[in-house]
Every structure is written in structure tokens, then in C-alpha cells.
């Protein structure tokens, strides 16, 4: 099903980009040649006459097509996100067993995706219902490890699974104190970024997510506010679900 969705998504993108490109090209032609030839001779002349005569209708049709392409992209990507979210929720439920309902959101499973320039990891999908609109992103670099932020950045650069536990607790309200600085240091994030975080987890497991051809796509981060909150005896299952995720994307 996933490759089919990918083709549909590509088609929707082509529709969107094609319509926008045609809109620009036809508008430029219309501005450059506002009057149609009186005695059209070749095919280009006839096309020019049609463009001038039906300009408004053509532009409107292309605008509608571009809109349809955009809507289709939204629908199709949300469909694939629903599938991804189902995997993340399954992972969350499998890892954090017996957690009281009110504490469920203390543990999260988040999939970060690299941007096109491959210098940022942005949240793509998160388990559960809390913190769904997080804008937190991490800078990453493939050349210099020091340029990588967060445990996600470490997993990205090292291209391996990273586990960090017992991170020192920060103050409940962020302050530029020693405790908060120690938290930022231990989690590899700049203090200004740590200050903005709504959740300051203390146990992290970050896994690189690769596509079928071995190229790194993003990073899966499992975190818990509780030290020792991630059960490492289930690493095998986590790794397998993570690789399944890579094949879905």
C-alpha cells in the first residue's frame, strides 16, 4: 500500500507544481503579448488567440487544479501519518506497560524527519494526543558532531542507537542556574532551546530511521520523564518496529 500512496502523492505534487508553473508561464505570455494576431496562421498563433480569448477561464481552471493538488497532498500525507502514528502508539503501548493513565504522557515516542537540506530534524509524528504541535527542532550536521543538537542529533551523526539515562533534573521553571545548565549539557541541547521545551525528559533512546536504500531519513526518539523509564529488555522489538517504520516511509 505504501508505494501506491507514494505514487498518488507524487501525482498530486505534479498536479500542484504543474498548474502553478503553467499559471506563471501563461500569465507572462499574456503580459508580453496582450493582443492576439488578427489572422492566425500557425498552431502557435491559434494557441495565442485561445489564450487571449479564454484567459480568465484558463487561469481559473489552473488555480482550481493547483488547489486540488494541494488538498490531495494534505489528505494523502495525513493518511500515511495515520499509519505511522499507529506504529508509534503500538510502540508506546508495548514499551510503557502498566503506566497509570494520568502518567501516559510522561513517556513519548516521537519520529523526527530531516529537512531537505539535512541540517534540521523536525517532529514528523508523535504518539498519543499530547504535545502534537511541538515546534522543537534540532540542528544536525553530517560533518561535525558538535553541530548536532539533542540525543536525536547524536543518533543522526553516529547513525547508531543511543541510550542515555539518569539525566540530571532541571528546575521546574527554567532558570539559568547550574542545575538547568547541567540538564542542557547532559541532553546535548543549547540552554536556550532547553528553556523552550515543555517536557524535559530524563531517559532517552534514539534510533536512526533509514529508508530502504540505507539512507538516513530521520530519528525515532523514545523519552521518559522518569530515570530508568525505558525498559531496555524490549530493545529487539523496538529495533524491529523501527526498521518496519523505515520501510513504510
Amino acid at each position, binding site marked *: 500500500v505504501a508505494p501506491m500512496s507514494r505514487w498518488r502523492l507524487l501525482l498530486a505534487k505534479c498536479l500542484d507544481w504543474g498548474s502553478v508553473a503553467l499559471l506563471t508561464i501563461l500569465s507572462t505570455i499574456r503580459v508580453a503579448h496582450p493582443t492576439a494576431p488578427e489572422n492566425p496562421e500557425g498552431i502557435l498563433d491559434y494557441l495565442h488567440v485561445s489564450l487571449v480569448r479564454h484567459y480568465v477561464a484558463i487561469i481559473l481552471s489552473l488555480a482550481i487544479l493547483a488547489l486540488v493538488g494541494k488538498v490531495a497532498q494534505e489528505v494523502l500525507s495525513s493518511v500515511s501519518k495515520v499509519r505511522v502514528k499507529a506504529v508509534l502508539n503500538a510502540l508506546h503501548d508495548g514499551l510503557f506497560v502498566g503506566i497509570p493513565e494520568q502518567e501516559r504522557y510522561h513517556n513519548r515516542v516521537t519520529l523526527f524527519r530531516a529537512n531537505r537540506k539535512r541540517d534540521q530534524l523536525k517532529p514528523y509524528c508523535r504518539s498519543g494526543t499530547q504535545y502534537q504541535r511541538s515546534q522543537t527542532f534540532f540542528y544536525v550536521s553530517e560533518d561535525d558532531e558538535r553541530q548536532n543538537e539533542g540525543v536525536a542529533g*547524536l543518533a543522526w*551523526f*553516529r*547513525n*547508531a*542507537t*543511543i*541510550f*542515555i539515562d*539518569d*539525566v*540530571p533534573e532541571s528546575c521546574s521553571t527554567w532558570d539559568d542556574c547550574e542545575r538547568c545548565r*547541567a540538564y542542557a*549539557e*547532559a541532553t*546535548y541541547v543549547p540552554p536556550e532551546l532547553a528553556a523552550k521545551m515543555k517536557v524535559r525528559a530524563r531517559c532517552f533512546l534514539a*534510533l*536512526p530511521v*533509514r529508508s*530502504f*536504500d*540505507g*539512507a*538516513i531519513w530521520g530519528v525515532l526518539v523514545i523519552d521518559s520523564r522518569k530515570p530508568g523509564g525505558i525498559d531496555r529488555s524490549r*530493545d529487539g522489538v523496538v*529495533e*524491529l518496529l*523501527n*526498521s518496519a517504520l*523505515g*520501510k513504510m516511509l
Partner: protein
Amino acid sequence: MGVKSQRIALPNVEGARVIVHGRHGEMVVSSSAYDVPRYVDVKVSDSENRLWITFGYIDSEEAERRDLDPNFTVLVGVNSGKLLGLEARNLSRSTGEVVISLVKAVDQQLEHATRDNQKLNYGMIRNVVKDRVAPLLAGA
């Protein structure tokens, strides 16, 4: 004389892990499922004096060939850099020497590894060659 091939399943190979000192205490770095070999194919051609070893993973990464010397070629993943295969030519030596050369070829890759996933993968491959491939070659 002829070509002999055999597949060795590796269901119990666990991902390698190392403990490194992070900024605050210990950090565990382990290989991801993509870098853990699931099987190894060993093919020997007596007539050509050649040996091919191919490692199978859960993904299908394209291979890049790296000639180490006229007798040895390693195949590494173009994106991840993990070891996908080894090719040995002119096999006129004893099995022991062949295994030593194979391990040496893996070690040579280990020296040039730039990422943790490569270092962990090469370590696992080294063990697979010594523990699983060598006995097979000795019995071939």
C-alpha cells in the same frame, strides 16, 4: 571442482554495543537493526580460485566496491558504509591464511570507519567471519 555455495542464517547475532563517556555519565551506543547481518552467503569456486562472502541485512542497500589489493575487494553500502560483502581471488593458500586475510580486510575497513554504525558493524562482521565462516571454509 566447481562452485560450492552455502547460506548461514544468523538469527542469534545481537547488535554490538559500546559504552562511551557522554557529557554526563555513560552513554550506550549500539548498532541499529539495519546494521546487524541476518545471514551470510559463502560461495567458493575451485576452478577460479575465488571466494565470495555476502552479508544479508533487512534492507537492500546498493554496494560500492573497494579494491584493497589485487586479491581482495570489499563491498560497502553506499549510504551507511556497512560491510555488504568480501571477494577474495587467487586462493592458493591454506584456509587459515584465507581467514586471516579476510579478518585483516575487515580490520582495514575498521581503521577507516568514520561513523559508529560502521565501527560496530565491522566488529560484528569480524566475529561472523571468525566464528561462522572460518569453520565452514575449513570443512569445505
